[in-house]
């Protein structure tokens, strides 16, 4: 899997941000410390990423924002994926009435407009911390995954090796966890990554709309604070560019990993390397 450059690059970016989220705040400056003598300073040797309107170090905020954003992203993805597994796999495996019920639920969530719904619910649950936000994002973001997992486990559960192990006497529990789930790890991890980007983006969006707790620092709240202080129109680009770029990078990384894994697992997607194409052409022309 690591042979795919997409996976390698994606994983290294994700790993970098993961480390940043875990260890960054321990070594970096205090993101909330404000230095009144250095307000809205462009990047300099002293403040590598410049400072905010409040004299806060943008680098420190970006680092600490990594934790805030990734926490929500990972948590939302974990919750969403968990629900998707809990709904999708039994639906596909057991079929029948279980499936009818769960599938209806899935379809229902699938056609519900998620962002407005999240907005409304988040609006009700006021002053939400990262955990609640992640919970809400996760709760509304599982349906696509559940549908995929249902379809997959439906086809897996009628695959011969599952039937064969059932004939050998394996109980349902083991069939689900040892025969079916291992085949879904690719889907599940893709789903997780996808959910993570979704979570990070949704958190940023919600923060932008002022729904999240602005007391916690995330990339979303950074952009929101910058927007609130008209940083964009005042040309304080160093304030809002780093968080936006970080989100884009994480998103790109996760997408790359997913594509890479897709290409490895689905040979139909594998594209011949350019060298091969060139060689083929040469032979033809020779």
């Amino acid at each position: 899997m690591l042979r795919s450059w997409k996976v390698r690059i994606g994983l290294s970016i994700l790993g970098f941000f993961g480390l940043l989220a875990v260890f960054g705040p321990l070594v970096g400056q205090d993101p909330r410390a404000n230095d009144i003598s250095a307000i809205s300073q462009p990047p300099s040797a002293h403040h590598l990423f410049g400072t905010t309107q409040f004299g806060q170090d943008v680098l420190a905020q970006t680092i600490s924002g990594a934790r805030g954003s990734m926490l929500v992203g990972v948590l939302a993805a974990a919750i969403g994926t968990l629900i998707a597994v809990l709904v999708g796999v039994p639906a596909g495996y057991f079929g029948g009435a279980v499936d009818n019920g769960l599938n209806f639920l899935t379809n229902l969530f699938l056609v519900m407009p998620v962002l407005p719904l999240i907005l409304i619910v988040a609006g009700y649950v006021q002053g939400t911390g990262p955990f609640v936000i992640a919970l809400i994002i996760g709760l509304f973001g599982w349906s696509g995954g559940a549908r995929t997992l249902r379809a997959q486990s439906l086809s897996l559960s009628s695959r011969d090796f599952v039937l064969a192990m059932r004939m050998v006497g394996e109980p349902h529990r083991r069939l689900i966890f040892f025969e079916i789930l291992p085949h879904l790890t690719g889907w599940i991890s893709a789903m997780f990554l996808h959910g993570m980007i979704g979570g990070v983006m949704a958190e940023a969006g919600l923060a932008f709309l002022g729904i999240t707790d602005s007391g916690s620092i995330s990339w979303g709240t950074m952009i929101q604070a910058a927007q609130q202080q008209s940083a964009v129109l005042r040309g304080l680009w160093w304030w809002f560019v780093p968080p936006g770029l970080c989100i884009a990078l994480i998103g790109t990384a996760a997408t790359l990993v997913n594509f890479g894994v897709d290409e490895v697992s689905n040979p139909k997607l594998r594209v011949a390397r350019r060298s091969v194409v060139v060689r083929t052409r040469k032979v033809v022309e020779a």
Partner: protein
Amino acid sequence: SGPTGGPAATGSAGGASIVYAKTDGGTTFVRNYNVLGPATDKAPNMELVYEPLMRVDYGAGGVVKPWLAESWAFAAQGKQLTIKLRTDVKWSDGQKFTADDVVYSLGLPIEKPDFSIAGVTYKSVTKVDDSTVKVVFPEPSYATLNQFANILLPMVPKHIWASQNLNTWTNPDPVGTGPFTVGEFKPQQITLKARSDYWGGKLPMTTYKIIPTSADALKAQLLKGDIDWASASWPNGEKEYVAKDPDKHLYQLYSNGGAMSVLFNTAKAPFNDVHVRRALALTIDRTAVVTTLQRPGTEAGPTGLSEQLFGDWLDPSYKGKVQKVDATGAKAELAKGGWTIDNGALVKDGKRYQPSILFNADWGWGNYADILINTWKQSLGLQVKGAGQPSAGYYDKQNLGQFDLAAASTGGASVYGVYRFLSSQFLTPIGKSATLDQGRWNDPETDKIIRSMERTDNVDELKTLGKQLQKIVVDEVPFSPIYNNFYFIDINATRWTGWPTPEKFDSIPFAGMGPDTIRTLLSLQRRGN
């Protein structure tokens, strides 16, 4: 804005027009002139159509002045008020404005509680003659006279309103006593037409246009001269706007009589101890906050009363005084109260308190809260947690008393107005919603002074009482002011001159101030005309 030119461009070609940009009303306007209804968003600048009986003169310390009412007199120890009306006022449909209209308008909130949106305190209104009405209160009400200056309690024509179902009627073509009538109403532009028979005089403009815009777009539009007038804060406006054309670009701040303060929850340990309150008040870095606000020099004095408005009312010893961060003093206060700080928490008698500060995230206050938190941490070692909430949650928590410290706005039209909320008549226990006394201040001395203020309209007496209250606020610190609040006015005086200035004003040029807005408009002149 567009290639066809901005609204002002075409507006000026068509005649004398003034363009006002509204930044807080969303992207569209709704044609709803049901002015007394409980809607919180109505058509904008309705005060140019419907006028109240009185006005508050902020330039003179917030005293109440006549408007549609010509004069008034209290009787029965302030429980009875006789109001004499102007006789030269006509509705825009030509009918005369009479006491019947006043009785109807003032009576509506009493008859229809769902229309009681202005918080009236009188119990009955009766007609004395065609130009006189009598209002009766259950309590002495000298201090609450300003309810008749509330733009939420304007005069409406009985001959039109009485026959409508007010629960469904949006009053699309309002008839009022004000200088304007509604000309054209489009969701993204309203044109008000000036009346020729306005009782207050002839307006210099023929139309008044209102357009919606966003705070950021507003700046560009002002710079371009697309609009004449707006009310929005512009941090660093001096440099970014005024400096570019000091003659025509005006950015004005008028004190609104209030301040942004740290409110202590005095019903709760540790803030029921004055020493703790004092210690925290002594270590607020007000300068840092106004610096990042880009509003230098607007630090609040210890009383919370703005000098711009209340210069005459302020105790001279508090004048010009701004508390700098005083860590030593604060520590001494804590020691006096037997408090120590251990590991970021306040400790006394083995009990630890780790306070948090509630703020409104919608105001983007988180970063200012951080400044306070940082200062408390640096000077006292106290670790205060930030607890941001969006507006709704913020008000919920504040009203229920579920906070330790809160960043809250305090203020009012007069000294009484500013301090009134400290009265224990508004006290509710924690967990029960409080309208005013969210800090749960409960002090017999304060109550006594406020009660006395409510029972007199003697200015000297009021000033004395006011100074007593100031002393309580400074010594007992039920709240600690950080910076003064303002009305922010943005003007592009390319087309219209004669604007008031904060240095010299009879009325505040803030659209939404009711009669003040009208007075401002009346005083403008076309440049070059």
